[in-house]
């Protein structure tokens, strides 16, 4: 295991940013989000980002086709991401969200844009030192301070960061920045393990977020399409897109054209099942006519349809929707009556 002292971090960012675009949790106007690091940016390694890092692999909007029409000919130009990048500071829950997005985008038919970005990106995960009030990643058998899916795992030990490569990409990155890394002493390496253990226990014992027992939830929800719960739940939903846009696993998108004159481009952009327009058909028919159907869709997609198809829940317990839903349609709570 390697380590880097915190005084060297500024230098470290600069060095990493020289290798590739460096995405870091940056704080601006009190809000932390992943963004390309620039000199003078305020890095915040204490809080998780508000918008999940999924937008680095699956941007809110991305153009993938340019077109030009003439009198007879249609010219097309495909665009795809080219830029290598390092995504540093992703929390283990969000790393787990990429496993979920991989299921959607990397199984046949493979989504070329997403696949390319996954290849271009090196994922550095930062373990959590203490669980937040709305965290419940342990409900999905995730560890707050360990992300097996990351290329490099980093732990914040106060004075220094511990650094451990976990994949080939991780080894490559380590080799490139070796000059700033020191060898960690055995007892320092051991402290990472004890951090893993205490946080895993800590979340269960935190007492803030009631631990959500998801065992058998999928089975319980089967056949619950028409239960009265949905009737009760939806009233308070405002129909905004906060929960879906802040969710690291939500992946629904829309495809739109933008054109001016004879040329234009095609892009895909996030869409949300909370919006009435989401299922509105050209005929004017809407199979999910009220917020009731939309709320039901969101919960059942995460907790029943997705696991039925892919074998895992489409939720990683990051707690963003719990924290930010203006009317507290708290996923850990609303399903309780159904059980």
């Amino acid at each position, binding site marked *: 295991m390697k380590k880097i002292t915190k005084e060297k971090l500024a230098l470290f960012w600069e060095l990493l940013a020289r290798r590739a675009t460096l995405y870091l949790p940056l704080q601006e106007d*009190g809000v932390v989000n992943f963004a390309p690091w620039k000199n003078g940016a305020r890095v915040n390694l204490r809080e998780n980002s508000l918008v999940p890092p999924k937008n680095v692999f699956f941007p809110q909007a991305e*153009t993938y086709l340019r077109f030009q029409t003439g009198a007879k000919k249609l010219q097309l130009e495909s665009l795809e991401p080219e830029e290598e990048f390092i995504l540093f500071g992703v929390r283990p829950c969000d790393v787990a969200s990429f496993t979920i997005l991989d299921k959607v985008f990397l199984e046949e038919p493979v989504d070329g844009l997403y696949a390319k970005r996954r290849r271009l990106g090196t994922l550095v995960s930062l373990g959590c030192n203490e669980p937040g009030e709305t965290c419940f990643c342990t409900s999905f058998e995730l560890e707050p301070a360990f992300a097996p899916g990351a290329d490099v795992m980093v732990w914040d030990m106060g004075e220094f960061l511990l650094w451990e490569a976990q994949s080939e990409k991780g080894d490559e990155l380590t080799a490139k920045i070796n000059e700033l890394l020191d060898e960690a002493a055995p007892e320092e390496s051991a402290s990472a393990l004890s951090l893993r253990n205490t946080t895993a226990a800590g979340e269960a014992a935190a007492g803030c977020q009631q631990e959500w027992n998801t065992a058998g939830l999928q089975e319980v929800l089967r056949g619950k399409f028409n239960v009265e719960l949905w009737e009760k739940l939806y009233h308070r939903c405002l129909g*905004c897109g906060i929960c879906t846009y802040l969710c690291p696993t939500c992946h629904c998108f829309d495809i*739109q054209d933008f054109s001016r004159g004879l040329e234009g481009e095609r892009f895909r952009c996030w869409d949300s099942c909370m919006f009435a327009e989401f299922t*509105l058909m050209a005929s004017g028919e809407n199979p999910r006519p009220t917020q009731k159907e939309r709320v039901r869709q969101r919960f059942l997609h995460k907790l029943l349809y997705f696991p039925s198809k892919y074998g895992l829940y489409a939720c990683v317990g990051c707690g963003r929707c719990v924290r930010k839903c203006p009317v507290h349609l708290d996923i850990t*709570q609303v399903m309780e009556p159904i059980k």
Partner: protein
Amino acid sequence: MKQLSERIKEAAFGSLSSGQVEMVIGWQKGPLWWQSFPAFITDPGETASLIWDPFSVSNLNKYLLNEVPKKKIALFLKGCDALGFNQLLRDGRVEREKVLLFGIPCDGLVDPARVEATGLSKGLLQVKKEREELVFYYKEGQRKAPARDFYYSKCLSCRYPNPVTCDEMLGEAVPCQPLERFANVSKLEAASLEERFTYWSRHFSRCIRCFACRNVCPACSCRECIFDIAEPRWLGKAKESGETLFYHITRAYHVAGRCVDCGECARICPLGIPLAELNRKFIKDINELYGEYDAGADLDKEAPLLTFKSDDPDVSA
């Protein structure tokens, strides 16, 4: 506050069990200290679950657009909510005789972010208000602090803590000591053009177009919103600064002269965009150019953009 929550339960129980209303909209509590949310109750037996606490911030009157009662709906209104209700009424979106309004005097509600900023949130179980103080409850005991230090900024500049309209007032009127609400607008006006552009570009660049600001707004009550229409698609879905600006200009412009300055848009924005300043710019300009007008409160005055005077200030450059 305890008293008020008892009176809310009583009012809800009374109006439901007497058959006067078929639904009561109030607030319930979730397991976390800051989770107070709108509740829709039709069974008098469930009215005991209604609460009033320092986090009952959700504005309930916009739900009237979705609920179609055969009889009446009973609703609890804070000062800011009452202004929004009046605006919905004025816009012809609710029927007064279909609603029973219980007024709640409210001198301010607590912003969970301010509690977190002080570190008081760690292990916090419950927050209660006792007169001018907040009491924070933990496993190990309790701590007290002045309540006003934790209020939403929108509450600190509130000018109508007591509902301007209701059928029955629950509780005594509270005093009002609003901060100057146009302070930030004036500060921005004094800045240079480029500073202002940078300021707003920075804030708008975070916008994720979740439409929460629109959905929560009591002045945004169109049956079909311009932002949702696919053909013509006025608002594109690309992450373009121009599109985002179009959205925010249009949102604020559409509620100009009808915005009651309840501050819900800014409170609800997950990305912390100071949206209320946009609305307040319009309010400030309207006040300066066409005379003081308080949407939701000045019911006897004509809405400023639905009228004119022949000697209005000219726009010609």
